[in-house]
């Protein structure tokens, strides 16, 4: 029910209705981006990675945070073999 899938905004379909074309794993479909327009206009959203749910982009995906999460995993791996403190 609460499933969301990552996709990338490739173009604007109708800026007045906040409708954008989003590529989700190679499939393109129109998605409403009105929940993303708090800090910038629709025109500047092209190229953004977003989480799509029920026809709406719910949130932007933060590339730096994604990388940080994976880095934490790497660090965990590097710690292996060290004796417990």
């Amino acid at each position: 029910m609460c499933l969301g899938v990552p996709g990338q905004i490739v173009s604007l379909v109708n800026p007045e209705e906040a409708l954008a074309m989003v590529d989700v794993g190679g499939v393109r479909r129109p998605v409403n981006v009105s929940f993303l327009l708090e800090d910038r206009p629709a025109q500047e959203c092209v190229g953004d990675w977003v989480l799509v749910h029920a026809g709406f982009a719910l949130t932007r995906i933060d590339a730096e945070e994604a990388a940080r999460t994976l880095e934490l995993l790497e660090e965990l791996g590097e710690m292996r073999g060290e004796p417990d403190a």
Partner: protein
Amino acid sequence: MKYVDEFRDPARARILVEEIHRLVARIPAARGRPLQIMEVCGGHTHTIFRYGIQQMLPEEVEYVHGPGCPVCVLPMGRVDDCVALAERPEVIFSTFGDAVRVPGSRKSLLKAKAEGADVRIVYAPLDALALARRHPDREVIFFGLGFETTMPSTAMALIQARKAGIGNFSLFCNHITIIPTIKAMLDSPDLQLDGFLGPGHVSTVIGTRPYDFIARDYRRPITVAGFEPLDVLQSTYMVLKQLADRRCEVENQYARVVRRDGNGPALAAIAEVFELREFFEWRGLGSIDQSGVRLRAAYAAYDAERKFAVANISIADPKSCQCGEVLKGIIKPHQCKVFGTACTPETPLGSLMVSSEGACAAHYSYARRTGSPTVPA
């Protein structure tokens, strides 16, 4: 797929599993029972079963599958109300695919459709609004359900309908809210949970701040978690680390999409359209105070409950059904009397067998035959 594949990396998963085993060895088993972590969201339940994550963990750690599958907690009387609405000749009844298979006391929406009712499966609430524009001579009802993840899109459909003055569109509202639900779990005398995996996509909307009471007042750790196997493993590690360090905090493993304050415009859309109900009935759990929402007076013209006579009768679950006990984690899915016999995904008796996010359906699909996981390639 970007942001998916890297969070399914088996090598990283192995490291995490090993670290979890080492960590658990440091947590004193004070109570002579496994540490119980509730994954609140049905999406996590699905991931846990699909990838066999429970079987990777030490015996001392146990997932309790929470109530966060909106289809699974839909009471039978509510499904009967849907069927009654759908069977009105002037109505086009639209909803998400999962919802049409939930059994009512007489039939499911799918059965009503087979018998001639105009039931349409839509991908999004805005698709239901488009139906209303295309069929001005019919009454289009959207059956809206789900937590705060789905609420903003329903709200936006109503805001657009009102703005455009579309008179033949209404909502049968079964949206529910997450915080009272978690609180009911914490207050349940049947449950002694040690920590939580927080619902990732609900949190994109509400943020992490509303969970503060769990750490502050109930002294339980919670980690908001993503939905890929590495996300679930890492979040589980983070909860266990808190237990090992005797900390109770709200942590966010899913920071790539979840922010502390959530999504402002989405919250504003919810607030514009919805208000809390005094109480709401859940399948298997009974009535939970302030756990549901209804439409505000300004949207009364779009409220199917006010527009049509809705019986609103509560109907008890079949006696053989133990959905409530599974929902509270008192028994495991396969311990239910009718699991896999009278109740299967093809002919579900209980709602937990309907959605792929339901604990029973997930257990049936991925863990039934061998008792161990089948990991898809």
